[in-house]
């Protein structure tokens, strides 16, 4: 397979991630979409690395996975905290923060 096919796959997944981020209003769904975006990035890294025949891309992908895990941890903590106070996870609900 040409590398470009993988890159296109990455682009498609990234775009789907952004679609989720802009379309969904549930905080968890948005978090899920962000994870999707990060994975799209990893596809790109790994595919490019194979093209170059080096391993840097793969190493970076490891870091990305670690960072993504950290992000998920923090994100989930915030979500749980919010859910406990407010019986909704809808981020677009009438907010005090506006203007």
């Amino acid at each position, binding site marked *: *397979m040409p*590398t*470009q*096919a*993988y*890159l296109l*796959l990455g*682009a*498609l*997944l*990234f775009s*789907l*991630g*952004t*679609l*989720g981020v*802009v*379309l*969904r209003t*549930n905080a*968890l*769904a948005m978090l*899920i*979409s962000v*994870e*999707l975006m990060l*994975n799209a990035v*990893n*596809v790109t890294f*790994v595919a490019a690395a*194979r*093209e*170059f*025949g*080096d*391993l*840097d891309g*793969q*190493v970076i*992908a*490891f*870091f990305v*996975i*670690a*960072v*993504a*895990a*950290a992000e*998920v*941890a*923090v994100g*989930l*903590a915030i*979500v*749980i*905290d919010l*859910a406990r106070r407010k019986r909704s*996870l*809808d981020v*677009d609900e009438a907010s005090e923060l506006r203007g």
Partner: protein
Amino acid sequence: MTAEQGIFAIAGGICVASAANAVLRRDPLVSALSLTVTLASLAVIYLGLGAPLLAGVQIAVFAGPVMVLLVFVVMLVGAGRIEAPRVGRPPIGGAAILVSVALFAVLASVILRGTVPTLVADRPSATDRVGALGELLFGKYLLGLEVTGILLLAALIAAVVIVKKRSSDRERSG
């Protein structure tokens, strides 16, 4: 059709379909489960790309514990909380789709017009790949590794702070 092409076609197809499902379904639990499928199929694609270690990590870290955590939280905070349809707020679905489609269109154009330079490099054999990876991690990317460690520590402390805050809140309210 080579094996790689087959893997790409099948795993890629599953990957995109489940990703679309994850993004478009209203129920976060379905989204979370669909994402797990996506992550798993991506691991397969990594295999096809000759990155077995990464595929393993993908399953072991991402599709495994992270997703379990995610599903757990989704169920904890109420799996049944299905996104309400947009009422009384300006419709943005059209704009959202437009932005995403535009993004994909631009990215596709970029990728199709761009070139990935072919570098003449000695392809390391599959056997010493793990070792080479380790060398890179603890050599060239040592700083990255250290920072990632600190990052995880910071995330841990951050979570602790939230928890402590919750307990102090509870004391206050209770």
